[in-house]
């Protein structure tokens, strides 16, 4: 799934390590999400949304493949 996590993280001035610490996941998970290799769980997406002060749809772009 396409996302804007990398841009938003940089806007907040956070490193991957710092974002991972705040969200409660590993740095590798943040890296995989930013590279769009892995879609996070709903709780993780909500934690990010709260941190970025946005709604989930603002930075996770769902594209129906049908």
């Amino acid at each position: 799934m396409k996302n804007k996590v990398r841009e938003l993280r940089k806007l907040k001035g956070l490193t991957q390590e710092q974002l991972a610490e705040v969200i409660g996941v590993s740095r590798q998970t943040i890296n995989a999400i930013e590279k769009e290799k892995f879609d996070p769980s709903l709780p993780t997406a909500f934690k990010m949304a709260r941190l970025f002060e946005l709604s989930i749809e603002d930075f996770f772009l769902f594209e129906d493949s049908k």
Partner: protein
Amino acid sequence: MKEKRRKHLLNLGLWTWSWVATLAIATFGPQLIWDDHTLLTTIAIVTNLANGVLMIMANRKLFNHFDELERKIHLESMALTLGLAVIVGLTYSLLDQTNLIPYDAEIGTLVGFIGVTYIITLLVNRIKYR
């Protein structure tokens, strides 16, 4: 988070090593240490079994501490390993039954295969999600 992870890993490592040690004692003890004494052999086997259960519980604690990506990586690796273990295990057994291999199929070989397969699939999955 890292401190807890280290603690769970250390715990699993300790239970794994003690399981291997009790397995070695239960395997070689009857012939080399206590001369086939039934009670001692039973105690050694029960101790090894109990140790194995505690090792599984330590592994479960570590797994529950993993984050979502790590769980996905491990679950995918376990699924592949389980599938391969069943298929290769049965093929190996068939080779023995039909005498296509000149030796008996040993469970240790299958356990070794499972271990190596799990490590390889873990490495492949880690690279995939890097």
